[in-house]
């Protein structure tokens, strides 16, 4: 092992910064190496000599008085601020909690997106129904607009009603009237038997 490394380890050992494993290796090396042992001894002697001989002195009394005055001043300032700080701590905590609650409430009450995507879905349903009607009647109908070229909402609604065997000219009151004009069937669930499909053209 290089003696230069051992010198550094000796310095670290004095400050307690050397790991126990390296401490063991250092002791083993020191037992065997006269040079490193002499280096360690001279280092300790220099340190001890310097410790006693370096200028120490004490600061002037004026300096000490100034420091004490500054300490009193700062302590008084801190005492003035302390009650405010003590009040501010719970308030800031409560404010943070309230903000969290508002954020959570906002997320919870956010508007849910409409599952029925208006015209596009209506147009798709219409296409499905039309294809079904064409299949059962053997053709002869006019295809409605595709999903890519959607009709207006009113036009789609009247087409849908026509496919269900109802006239678009029926009023809502007539549609709701029991025993009157048959109710429209839900095109998706088909909860009621559908009326015979009307042939277009």
């Amino acid at each position: 092992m290089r003696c230069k490394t051992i010198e550094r380890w000796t310095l670290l050992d004095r400050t307690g910064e050397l790991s126990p494993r390296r401490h063991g290796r250092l002791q083993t090396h020191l037992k065997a190496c006269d040079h490193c042992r002499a280096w360690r001894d001279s280092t300790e002697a220099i340190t001890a000599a310097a410790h006693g001989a370096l200028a120490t002195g004490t600061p002037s009394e004026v300096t000490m008085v100034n420091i004490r005055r500054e300490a009193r001043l700062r302590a008084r300032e801190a005492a003035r601020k302390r009650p405010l700080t003590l009040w501010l701590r719970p308030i800031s905590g409560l404010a943070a909690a309230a903000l969290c609650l508002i954020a959570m409430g906002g997320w919870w009450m956010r508007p849910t997106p409409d599952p029925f995507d208006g015209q596009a879905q209506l147009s798709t349903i219409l296409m499905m129904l039309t294809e079904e009607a064409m299949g059962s009647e053997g053709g002869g109908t006019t295809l409605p607009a595709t999903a890519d070229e959607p009709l207006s909402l009113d036009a789609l609604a009247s087409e849908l009603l026509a496919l269900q065997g109802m006239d678009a000219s029926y009023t809502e009151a007539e549609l709701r009237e029991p025993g009157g004009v048959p109710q429209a069937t839900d095109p998706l669930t088909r909860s009621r038997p559908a009326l015979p499909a009307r042939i277009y053209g």
Partner: protein
Amino acid sequence: MDSEDRRLIAQYREGDVESLSTLVEKYRRPLFGFILNMTEGKGDADDIFQETWFRAIRGLASYRQKNFMGWLVRIARNLVIDRHRRQRPGVSLDARHEEDGSPLIELADRAPGPLGRAATRDDISAVALAVESLPGEQKEVFLMRVQAGMSFREIAVTQKVSINTALARMQYALTKLRPLLRAEFENQRETP
């Protein structure tokens, strides 16, 4: 930081001014000694000692360090460097380099030279003279270790260098001091 320091700092934060006086008293000698050896004379050392404590008092509210003495020494060191820069503006810190390759910063203005100062100070010993003749960074490491009792990790943090650089500076300092102090430590070795 030892538990006593922690307790005294906590008490001062609660408003007990006496606990700070105890802290000042506890670190008065090592801190002032460090500053005195890094500066030019007692007047400068007094100013820097006072300013160090002023800054420490202001910073105590947010103090989170582990070693209180190390923290004080860091403040004092920065003040010494600031003062040195004010006194000698335009001195390039990169102009000279130490043996370990790091830039040499001469923290204490040694204009009169160690021997010249020795002529004006009767109390200065051969050891102090030898320490004073060390290059700035090596002298700083030596004083932080011997006088302030800082660990090499703390010294490295203070000097913003690696622990190996701090150790190398101490090694160089000791290598330079050894021949200068041969007579001193020969005497010490003879006395049991």
